[in-house]
Structures are given as structure tokens and as C-alpha cells.
């Protein structure tokens, strides 16, 4: 392993060092402020390292991992999301008086797994990243030990997720049988010569398994329950870091192995996309609980993302669709994270977990203007209203869809978006209702939390108003 490889992997190394030092610190002396410092410190160092050692060209760090613009970009996104999650969780855990060390450690481990996924160019690293992340997330979902809801959610997620991982492994094995290779690029070459039922079955199984993890219809059943049961900051983590990392790896595989050449797969994906967009949005319409609502709407958002994959399969010119999916992932991360952070901050101040029905949000505009602004922006961005990042992302998706002439998909997208406006607006309206209750005094790291909020507001706004710098960065990233 030469110096360049080592340098290019330094962000991941910093994160693993962070995990180890957190373990040692916990063994010597439990101090939650120090644990917070170590975990934030290692993430910030990882962030700084990924920005300062951005490689000029792609570096093959072992056959398993590749460090290129794409991996770096998403390392930054994932690490930033993890930082936000840790700060938001800190406020929540202080108000609930929970043990914090193990929690921070689990978040670091899960983020590490996600970063590995962003670098994966081989089925082995794909699976490793997936499992490192998955195992930590199961524990995070069930972390609060005082009531049954998180445990139920954790168990549900654990069982379904491991079942889907088993299917995934089976798919990998079948592909290996058919082609004899495991690297994404090599697979692309090998698939050109092999065209058998085995390959079809294998890709189908892999997509079914990933469909579970990304909660695509018809594999979406667990989503609202797990979203509702998990502690709010972790729901945000699950919805962003975990799903985004999986989609990032999926996209690299799909692109690297040139899977779009399989017409049946493209067709199957477009049905999945249509079903996810429609079912997700219509399910969300019926939810009164904000976490369930966001869960259902995330099904729809994954459907929008699939549109870009289908475009990849339909067009020969792939730039626009790739840019569209990268953009969508980033806008979705910012908005979803903002929504869950705001909700968590609100819950920490106004009573315990579980209070996230619409009527629990009444009066937020008057009691906590900052939180309400973050929430409103997040929902508007998810709805795709102009001046937010979500609009540019949706613009990209629609543009790529139009270019490929996918009218049925676009019809479902427009219908779904129109429906989604209704339920997002209902929440925004609830925020504006005037009530007389007094706010509860703030506990915990108020300043850090405010920095997170300002960062999220800036991200949503700046990406929405002046997207050009990021557009240039994203162009040709994969």
C-alpha cells in the first residue's frame, strides 16, 4: 500500500481511529461530554481530510475500494449528516437522561459503514459496508430502553433487514456462478458475454433485497412502523445516511456493471418506480403522525430516484441522469435531515418521545420560530417548491425523464408530487396554528444545535438559489 493510497483512505482511517479511541475512553472513564468531543472531533477530522486530500484522479485503493470524486463527495455528505445527527441526539439524550457513550460509538460505526459503501467497487466491500452499517443501525433503533416501541421497531428492522441481506448474498453468489467475477467493472465486461436466466434471477434478487432496504414498493411495509418506533434523531439517520449510502453503492454498481443494458431490468425498475411514487404518496396522505408521514413520503422519494435509474437504462447519454440522481440524493439528505432534526429538537423541549402527531406541532411558529423555519423549509424542499434544493433536484429528475421520453413515469411523478403538496402543507399549516402553551426552557447544547440548523437552512437555500457551483462539481462525478 503506497503513500497515495494511504492518503486517499485517510478519512476512513480517521473515523476508525475515532471509534477505537472512543472505546478506550469509555473503558477508562465514562464522561459524556468527552465522548461527544471525541466523536465530533474524529468526524470533523475526517471531513477536513476528505476535503484536503481530494484526489485529482481516481485512486484504486485495493481491488475493493475506489477513491474518486463520487466517493469523496458522498463521504462529505454522509459525515456532515452524521455530525448533525450526533448533535441533535445529544440534546435529545440529555432531555431523556440516557447513557450516551455507546450511542455515539454506534453512530460512528454506522457512518463508517456508510462511507465504505460509498467507496465500494466490489461485492465484498459492498456487503461489508452494508453489514457494518446495518448492525449498528439495528442497535441504534432499539437504543432507548424505557419503552417497547423502539424495541419493536428494532426487531422488525432486524428481521426484515437480515432476511433481505440473505437474499442479497444469494444474488451475489448466483452472479458469481454465472460470471466468475465480483468487481463491478469486471462484472460489466463479463455480463456482455453471458446472458442467462441465472443473471436475470441474480439481479432481480439483488434488487429485491435493496428494495427492502430502500423501502421501494412492494417491499415498503416496514417503513412507517420503524420510522415511528425509532428515536427521532435515529429515524433521520436511517432515512438519510443509511438509505443514501445504499443508493450510492447501488448506483455505482448499476453504472459500473452497465446493468442498463438489460431491458427487462429497466422495465421492472420503471414499474417499481411508478408503484413507489404513487403508493408512497397516497399512503402518506393518510398519516397523522409526522414520522409515519415522512416514512411514507420517503418511499415516494426513492421512487423519484429510481426514475433517474430508468433514464440511465433508456438513454445512451448518461450524464444528465447521473447528475440528477446525485443531486436528488443530496437535496433529499439535506431536507430529510432538517425535518427530523427540527422534529427532534421540538420533542426534546415539549415532552417526551412519540408526540409527533399533527396537533402536537401546533403553534411551533410562535413558540420556536427557528425550529419552525427549519421544518417549513425542509417540507417545502421535499415538496419541490422553487428556491429550495429540492426544486433543483426535481427539476433535474423531470429534465432527464423528459429527455428519455418516459411519459408514464413523469405522469406518476407529477400526480405524486401534487398529492404530496397536500400532506406537506397540512403539516406547515399545523405549525402556524396559534396556541397559548409556554415553551419549556432549553437544555443541552443550544449553540451547537443552532449551528446545525443554520447549516441546514443554508444548504437548502443556497443549493436552491445558486446551484451552479455544485452542478459543476457533480458534472462528470461518476
Amino acid at each position: 500500500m503506497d503513500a497515495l493510497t494511504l492518503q486517499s483512505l485517510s478519512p476512513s482511517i480517521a473515523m476508525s481511529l475515532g471509534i477505537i479511541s472512543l472505546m478506550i475512553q469509555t473503558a477508562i472513564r465514562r464522561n459524556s461530554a468527552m465522548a461527544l468531543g471525541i466523536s465530533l472531533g474524529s468526524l470533523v477530522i475526517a471531513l477536513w481530510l476528505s476535503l484536503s486530500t481530494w484526489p485529482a484522479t481516481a485512486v484504486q485503493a485495493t481491488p475493493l475500494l475506489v477513491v474518486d470524486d463520487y466517493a469523496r463527495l458522498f463521504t462529505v455528505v454522509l459525515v456532515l449528516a452524521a455530525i448533525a445527527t450526533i448533535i441533535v441526539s445529544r440534546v435529545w439524550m440529555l432531555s431523556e437522561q440516557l447513557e450516551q457513550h455507546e450511542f455515539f460509538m454506534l453512530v460512528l460505526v454506522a457512518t463508517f459503514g456508510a462511507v465504505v459503501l460509498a467507496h465500494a467497487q466490489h461485492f465484498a466491500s459492498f456487503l461489508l459496508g452494508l453489514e457494518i452499517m446495518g448492525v449498528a443501525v439495528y442497535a441504534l433503533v432499539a437504543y432507548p430502553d424505557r419503552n417497547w416501541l423502539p424495541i419493536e421497531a428494532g426487531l422488525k428492522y432486524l428481521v426484515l433487514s437480515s432476511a433481505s441481506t440473505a437474499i442479497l448474498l444469494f444474488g451475489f453468489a448466483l452472479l458469481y456462478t454465472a460470471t466468475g467475477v465480483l468487481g463491478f467493472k469486471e462484472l460489466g465486461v463479463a455480463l456482455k458475454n453471458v446472458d442467462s436466466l441465472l443473471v436475470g434471477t441474480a439481479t432481480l434478487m439483488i434488487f429485491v433485497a435493496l428494495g427492502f432496504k430502500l423501502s421501494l414498493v412492494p417491499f415498503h411495509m416496514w417503513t412507517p412502523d420503524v420510522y415511528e418506533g425509532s428515536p427521532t434523531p435515529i429515524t433521520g439517520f436511517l432515512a438519510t445516511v443509511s438509505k443514501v449510502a445504499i443508493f450510492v453503492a447501488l448506483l455505482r454498481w448499476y453504472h459500473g456493471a452497465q446493468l442498463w443494458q438489460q431491458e427487462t431490468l429497466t422495465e421492472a425498475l420503471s414499474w417499481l418506480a411508478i408503484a413507489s411514487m404513487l403508493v408512497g404518496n397516497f399512503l402518506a396522505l393518510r398519516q397523522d403522525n409526522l414520522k409515519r408521514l415522512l416514512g411514507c413520503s420517503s418511499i415516494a422519494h426513492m421512487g423519484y430516484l429510481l426514475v433517474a435509474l430508468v433514464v440511465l437504462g433508456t438513454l445512451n447519454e448518461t450524464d444528465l441522469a447521473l447528475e440528477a440522481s446525485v443531486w436528488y440524493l443530496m437535496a433529499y439528505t439535506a431536507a430529510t435531515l432538517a425535518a427530523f432534526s427540527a422534529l427532534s429538537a421540538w420533542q426534546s423541549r415539549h415532552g417526551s418521545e412519540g408526540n409527533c402527531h399533527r396537533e402536537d406541532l401546533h403553534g411551533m411558529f410562535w413558540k420556536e420560530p427557528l425550529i419552525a423555519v427549519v421544518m417549513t423549509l425542509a417540507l417545502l424542499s421535499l415538496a419541490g417548491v422553487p428556491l429550495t434544493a429540492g426544486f433543483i433536484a426535481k427539476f433535474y429528475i423531470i429534465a432527464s425523464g423528459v429527455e428519455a421520453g418516459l411519459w408514464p413515469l413523469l405522469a406518476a411523478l407529477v400526480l405524486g408530487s401534487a398529492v404530496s403538496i397536500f400532506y406537506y402543507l397540512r403539516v406547515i399549516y399545523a405549525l402556524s396554528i396559534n396556541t397559548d402553551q409556554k415553551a419549556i426552557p432549553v437544555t443541552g447544547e443550544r449553540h451547537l444545535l443552532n449551528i446545525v440548523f443554520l447549516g441546514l437552512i443554508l444548504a437548502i437555500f443556497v443549493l436552491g438559489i445558486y446551484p451552479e457551483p455544485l452542478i459543476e462539481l457533480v458534472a462528470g462525478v461518476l
Partner: protein
Amino acid sequence: MSLLIAALLLGGALAWLSERVSPEMPARLSLATLLVCIGALWQLSQVALTSGPDAAGWLAYEAHSWIPRFGIQFVLAMDGMSLLLVGLTLLLGIVAVIASWTEISVRPGFFQANLLWTLAGTVGVFLAMDLFLFFLFWEVMLVPMYLLIAIWGHEARAPAATKFFIFTQASGLLMLLGILTAAVTYADQTGEWSFAYMDWLQTPLQGAAANYVFWGFLLAFLVKLPAFPVHSWLPDAHTQAPTAGSVILAGVLLKTGAYGLLRFGVALFPDSAQEWSTTLLLVGVVGVLYGAVMAYGQRDFKRLVAYSSISHMGFILLGIFAWNRLGWSGAVIQMVAHGLSTAALFMIAGALQERLHTRALADMGGLWHAMPRMGAMAMFFIIASVGLPGLGNFIAEFLVLAGLWQSAPLICAAAALGLITGAIYALWLLQQAFHGPLSERHMSLKDFTPRDMIALSLLAAGLLGLGVYPQPALDLVAPALDTLAIQAGG
């Protein structure tokens, strides 16, 4: 021009912050902002009108690079039509601020901020000459308007605000789809992305694609106008909105639909527009008559005025698809005249609601005796909206009907019926609210203050000027309509 929009946005933000100083401060600040903007617009138009239009026919033009990846530019341009409508927007903005002076007690700063932001979006819509930018402003108008209705509206505000947002947003998505289809086609033809209006005029869409894109635009504009049968958001939104909201909605926001039809619908897709013109004329005439009949059936002051808007906006649709210069001039004058008269009527309705705490016509009657100033003003504007010769609305409707007579005499005859039905509901409104016996409990109502009178007199003067001597306004929009006639090939 970009400074104009920036000033409105900034003024809104300042008004929001100034809430902490005193509850009256935000209204004062936003009034000051609007006055400054009107001064700036005056200055701009004087300079532009003396130096004459540029080669492309714009009085003022500015372009900045924005998102080169898609060839999106920040292009603002103004011709006579835009100038007239921007002026109307700012004028009605002042009226709206005055109408909200005493009405709004909860969060006045945030209210004024939303008001100014809505105006900024509307001014942007009238000036944007890049379709991406146009769409952006089109949507930006919505969010603050939604908040105006949802937070400060009347009893049934939640469904009204939601309905308003969903109707406009869903049709807006179709327009976005249309815009993107046109842009992708343009990129295929020329090899470069562009959303600029002037570029699209050079390379018109052909065939079936043009038809689909035209319908995407058309639906968005018809919903906003609104035309029958996509009008159902309007009565609710107008009735539930606070006075200032209704003034802006009826006075300006509806006009963006009409403006869009003329500027983009007709100019970019002349063939498709002409192909569908008979259908759209029928839609227009149904709107005129349906609005009038429904207005007569209303028992709520604001709802009645709202339905009358549907009727009057039908005339605009008729004027546009009469497909000649007369009709188009009529449509533009109608935009201004309807804006002025309806804004005034909503202001009066708001004043009544503030004093009587009801909008039901049954609870009114004889109010002239209690409030002679308000009564006189109401009479003036009701008669104006009937279309009394000598006032702006008459000129507008006359031009529309004259234009329509040349292209579709039968439809013209049917539309003329709208004038009669219009007189029936309008006079009925006046009679119910202001004539008849005055009830005991309404004896000591407060009449309009000088501030209200100034605002209404401004509107009255505008209508009178437009009615007695419409030539300056017609001259102002003439070059724009000439260009349009060339683009439409007729």
C-alpha cells in the same frame, strides 16, 4: 429592475424585524418600501420612454448568467404591457397595506413581509423573460400568499388555503413539464440548452409536441385566471383571505394568468393557440355567464365579488382568443380595470367585516345612512364593475366585444348577455348592503378614515382616467401588442 424586486424582498425582511419596535412599524415600513418602488419605477419608465425601446422592443432589459449548465439566465425585460402591470401591482400593494393597517393585530411584521414577498414574486412574473425564472417567480408568489390566507384568514381558512395552493401548484407542475419538454426539444434542435423567451421565439416548436406543451402552459394559466371549470379554488380563497390578501389575489395574482396567456401562450404557440381558440372562447363565455349567475346566488359579500371576478376574467379570455388587436387591447385594459375595481370592492368588504364582524348580506342593509362615505365609494365601484360608460371597465369590455364581433359574432352575442346579468347582481349587492332600512345596532358604525379614502380615491381616479381618456394606456401597450401580432402571424 432586479433592484425593484430586491427592494421588495428586503423591505419584507425589514418589516418582519421591525415588528419588535412597534406594532405599527411594519405597515409604515412596507408602505415606504412600496412608495420607493413606485418612485423607482416612475424614474425607470421616464428614462426608458424618452430614450425609446431597444432593437428587440424592450423598454428595459437586463441579463445575468445564472445556471450555465442548463443555459438558464437571469433575464428581466420590460415592455409597455409589463410596465402597466407592474405599476398596477405596486399601486394595489399600497392599497393592500392600507387595508391591513388596522385589520391585522397578530404578527403584523410577518404579515407585511409575506405581503411584500408576494408582490415581489408577482413583479418577477411580469418581468421574467427566461422560462425557468418565470416558473420560479410563478411559484414564489404562492408560498407567502398561502401563509397570508392560512394564518390571517377567516373561519374556514385551512381548506381554502390548501385548495388554492394545490390547484396552482399541481397545474404549475404541468407547466414545468411543458417548459422542460420545450427546453429539451430546443436542446435537441440547436445542441444547446436555453430557457430564454427570445431564443424560443426563434425556434418554435412543431407538431404534436407543441400541442402538449401548449396545454401544459394553458392549464396553469387557466387555473390562475381562473376559467370555468378549474375556478373552484377562487371563491374559497378570496372569501377566506384577509382583506389585503383578497386585494392582491383578485387585483394582481389573477392577472398573472392572463399575462402568461398573452406573453407565452399566444406568442410561443400561435398555431396551437389558434387551433384551440374556439374551445377556449366557449370556455370564456361559459365563465362569463356562470360567474354572473353564481354571483347572483351568493349571500356573502366577498363570495359575490369573487364570483363576479370569474365572470370578468372570462372577458379577458374572450379578448385574448378573439385573436385580434382590438380584443387584446381590451384584455389588457380589462386586467387593469378589473384589478382596480375589484381591489376596491374587496377593501370595502373587508372594512364591513371589520366593523360588522360578518360578511352576510342579510345582516347588512341601509348602511349608507351610517357610513355615507363608504356607501358612496361602494356605489362608484359597483357601478364601475357593471361597466358604466366613462369608467375603465366599460372601455375594456367594449373593446373585447368589438374584437370578438369580428371573429366570433355568436359568442360575442352570448358574452354580451354577461353585461346584463352583471348589472343584476351588482345592483342587487348595492341594494342589499347599503340601501333599505338601517338596523338599530348599526347606527354608530365608524365611517372610512381619510387614509382609506385616499386609497380608494386613487383607485377611483385610475378607473375614471382609464374610462375617459384610455389612449395613453393603449399607446403604452400598443408596441407590445404589435410585436405579439407579428409573432402570432395575424
